[in-house]
């Protein structure tokens, strides 16, 4: 490989996660691990109907129950129209919800909240609330929602803060289109055309820790919210907005949080807890149960994606025409941006001059979709990688060779980058680090791709067929010209540093990765850095944990910050040693003279600067606005065995080869990759919401919503293909999301390779596969 790579003293090393030992010791680090006296408990009453007007709510009996402290409904709660999406301001999500809505729009919509002395009392009180509904006919099929006579948001008040097409009369949440080249010409030039439609399904993030917030007032009567959130700064802003209180009166603290994957990018529990805390002046806890996670948190956007593509016999892709219908459920949170990302995080992957994207997001009376790892890229990859496979097969080219020929290469651009961004036009960019060819080659060798026909024959039986699948992926790293991240650091007496980050470590290891970058610049050990992140009173702003941005963007801010401090240290040492700064160099926790033995240690500088000489606080703040979004790339390879009698698909081996630029911490890279992968395999094979005819989720529990366990795992191998991203910190790009998007198409391709049956609607459960086999016969 010609691309340079970077390995530093600490960057590129798998140092232990800064919080790992504390977590292994079971220290009280999570939201609910600190006891509060006199805590009030909250329970929520949810709509049993998918679509209904609330005619009346009578809470009088509930309020009389001893131990009940308050009840909130649409009658007495804040009526501020907002979005629960924790995005930058102005949000690219429609303002279409209130804390409680007079019209309920899905089974699981909020009707009333009870605050009580105990959870049990609150639960009993829920049963005493009498609600009169006028039940309306619902819409569940997102392909039939647009322009339907049933109108879900007929209150007529919803609006975007940004100029985006929105038409509630047509259940139309968002529209995006983009076209480059000449589509007619593209399809005319094609020797073959493939036109495929896929549909993905509802799924939940399943962080092991459900949503939770504890709100209380501190000694200065400021509202403090401890919250399991991915977006503490957005949470602070939205709480202040909805409750009509000054932002300066709100502090959001994110302790350790038990996973997020996107669902904690939503402001779900904070406002309710805060509203009761304001009323009761007591600590209030609102904690979701697992069931509530399934019925009333957020989900992946189910989409119908049609992709029509043309190819010449020589393997040139002549046209790609993608149509997306995205189902945002009952409310439009992330409705615009997930849909637009379906185009922008997939279409630049392959060379093609003529590309069209049309995306529409619609409401249905189903659970609310939101941000979910992969964020549109997952949905689009299902269509794109199936179609790419079929194009290759149509012209008798190996699917790996076809991808090697067509994928975007280092230094190239795609017109889609400019034509399609996140919720609007995008930004032109070249991709300056692409290790995808190597990913494909290494992955193919590792799984035995080139000899697979012989292998398949040898290992298949009459009813158990082996097959191999491949999928390639790209994502981004941050949202250009929108995302901003900041970091602050100060030096202590002993030469140690406090590193204060707005960035939100949700288990990803970002506190560690960012400390590694800081240590690399300043010649520090990890033990010299005390990381504190995500406290809106103490740390600088960061947009939060989403859009695969923290390593890349906050990493750049931290690198800038460390460089600023390095300059201060040189200046300070220069004065102390009475030599020009240019004669100095950085040593191990010291500044040394380049030629003499003269040096001054960081601990000397730290002590002297605070107490005796040239006194000052050595420290700085730095921030970074994202200017591009360099995609990470990866290749997924799977070997499956399909039982043609039972329809069972067994994944035997799964190999991922990934290009995330410089892997700042390889073991954390592997953890992020395999965690996403296993979630993706579960989504492809077993995870799904089962609805009854009234739109109620019938399987809201881990017992009935099957996520993978240790005994379900295939043999997994992760190959890191280091490249160097010139715009990233020490050459790094993102890795958080990309690998969740591979299994759906990769396994569809593997199933096709095994039995010649194309399945386009996951999950590939035995009954679905069997049906597809029978239909094919």
């Amino acid at each position: 490989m010609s691309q340079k790579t970077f390995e530093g003293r600490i960057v590129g090393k798998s140092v232990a996660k800064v919080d790992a030992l504390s977590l292994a010791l079971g220290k009280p680090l999570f939201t609910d691990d600190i006891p509060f006296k006199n805590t009030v408990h909250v329970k929520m009453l949810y709509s049993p109907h998918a679509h209904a007007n609330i005619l009346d709510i009578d809470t009088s009996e509930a309020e009389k129950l001893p131990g009940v402290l308050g009840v909130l409904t649409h009658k007495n709660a804040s009526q501020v129209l907002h979005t629960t999406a924790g995005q930058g301001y102005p949000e690219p999500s429609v303002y279409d919800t209130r804390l409680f809505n007079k019209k309920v729009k899905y089974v699981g919509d909020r009707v009333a909240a009870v605050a009580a002395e105990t959870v049990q009392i609150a639960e009993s009180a829920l049963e005493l609330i009498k609600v009169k509904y006028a039940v309306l006919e619902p819409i569940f099929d997102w392909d039939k929602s647009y322009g339907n006579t049933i109108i879900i948001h007929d209150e007529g008040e919803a609006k975007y803060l940004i100029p985006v097409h929105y038409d509630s009369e047509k259940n139309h949440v968002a529209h995006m289109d983009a076209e480059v080249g000449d589509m007619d010409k593209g399809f005319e030039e094609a020797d073959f055309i493939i036109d495929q439609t896929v549909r993905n399904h509802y799924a939940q993030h399943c962080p092991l820790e459900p949503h939770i917030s504890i709100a209380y007032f501190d000694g200065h009567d400021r509202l403090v919210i401890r919250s399991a959130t991915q977006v503490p700064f957005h949470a602070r802003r939205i709480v202040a907005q909805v409750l009509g209180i000054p932002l300066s009166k709100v502090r959001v603290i994110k302790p350790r949080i038990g996973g997020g994957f996107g669902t904690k990018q939503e402001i779900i529990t904070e406002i309710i807890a805060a509203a009761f805390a304001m009323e009761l002046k007591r600590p209030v806890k609102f904690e979701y149960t697992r069931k509530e996670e399934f019925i009333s948190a957020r989900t992946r956007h189910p989409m119908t994606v049609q992709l029509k593509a043309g190819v010449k016999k020589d393997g040139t892709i002549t046209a790609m025409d993608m149509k997306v219908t995205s189902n945002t459920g009952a409310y439009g949170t992330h409705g615009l941006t997930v849909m637009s990302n379906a185009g922008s995080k997939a279409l630049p992957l392959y060379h093609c001059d003529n590309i069209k994207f049309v995306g529409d997001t619609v409401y249905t009376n189903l659970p609310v979709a939101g941000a979910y790892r992969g964020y549109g890229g997952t949905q689009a990859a299902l269509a794109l990688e199936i179609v790419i496979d079929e194009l290759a097969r149509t012209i008798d080219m190996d699917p790996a060779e076809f991808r090697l020929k067509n994928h975007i290469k280092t230094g190239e651009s795609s017109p889609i980058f400019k034509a399609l961004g996140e919720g609007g036009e995008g930004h032109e960019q070249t991709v300056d680090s692409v290790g995808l060819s190597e990913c494909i080659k290494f992955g193919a060798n590792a799984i035995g791709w080139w000899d697979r026909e012989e292998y398949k024959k040898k290992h298949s039986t009459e009813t158990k067929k082996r097959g191999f699948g491949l999928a390639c992926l790209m994502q981004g790293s941050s949202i250009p010209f929108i995302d901003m991240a900041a970091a602050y650091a100060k030096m202590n007496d002993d030469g140690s540093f406090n590193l204060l980050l707005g960035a939100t470590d949700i288990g990803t290891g970002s506190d560690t990765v960012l400390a590694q970058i800081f240590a690399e610049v300043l010649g520090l050990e990890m033990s010299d850095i005390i990381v504190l992140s995500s406290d809106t009173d103490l740390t600088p702003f960061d947009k939060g944990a989403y859009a695969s941005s923290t390593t890349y963007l906050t990493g750049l801010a931290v690198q800038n910050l460390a460089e600023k401090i390095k300059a201060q240290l040189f200046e300070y040492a220069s004065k102390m040693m009475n030599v020009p700064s240019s004669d100095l160099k950085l040593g191990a926790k010291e500044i040394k003279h380049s030629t003499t033995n003269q040096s001054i240690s960081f601990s000397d500088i730290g002590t002297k600067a605070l107490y005796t000489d040239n006194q000052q606080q050595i420290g700085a703040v730095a921030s970074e606005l994202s200017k591009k979004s360099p995609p990470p790339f990866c290749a997924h390879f799977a070997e499956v065995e399909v039982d043609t009698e039972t329809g069972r698909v067994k994944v035997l081996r799964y190999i991922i080869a990934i290009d995330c630029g410089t892997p700042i911490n390889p073991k954390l890279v592997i953890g992020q990759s395999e965690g996403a992968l296993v979630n993706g395999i579960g989504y492809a094979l077993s995870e799904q919401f089962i609805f009854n005819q009234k739109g109620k989720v019938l399987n809201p529990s881990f017992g009935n919503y099957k996520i993978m366990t240790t005994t379900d795992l295939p043999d997994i191998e992760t190959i890191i293909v280091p490249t160097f991203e010139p715009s990233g910190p020490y050459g790094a790009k993102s890795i958080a999301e990309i690998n969740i998007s591979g299994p759906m198409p990769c396994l569809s391709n593997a199933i096709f390779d095994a039995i010649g049956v194309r399945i386009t609607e996951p999950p590939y459960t035995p009954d679905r596969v069997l049906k597809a086999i029978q239909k094919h016969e």
Partner: protein
Amino acid sequence: MTMKINLTINNHPKTFIIDPSELLIDVLRREGYVSVKRGCDEGTCGACVVLLNGKAVKSCILLAAQAHEGTITTIEGVGTRDQPHPLQLAFVDEGAIQCGFCIPGILLSAKALLDKTLSPTKEEVKIALDGNLCRCTGYSGQIKAVLKAAAVMRGDKK
């Protein structure tokens, strides 16, 4: 109605006054053993696993009263910062801890296995951890970490 239960928790004798309907997880968390995590309340996620008389049990589907006169280990009673248990060290070294919410339960399920055998096969490790969900890591590092800790505890040279 209340009742009194005697437990030995992390080698300390304890007596608690409980409501007979209280679940073990609720009593343990109330008494400060907050490493016992609540992930599902139905005995499927394993975040609430504790060792009861040496066996890994899910404390969210066990009445506290059922543990009366029993010996309980929570992760607070396993290892210290200066002397972590080999399992804790191996999990840290293998990068097997991401958000960490599932980790106390997983470590205890693993400990129950290693208390029985220091030479488990990979398959046995997988089966021992099958009742513990982790959404962050994809499990491979955790399985590796358990095998590594077993090797350390056997005294294998590196």
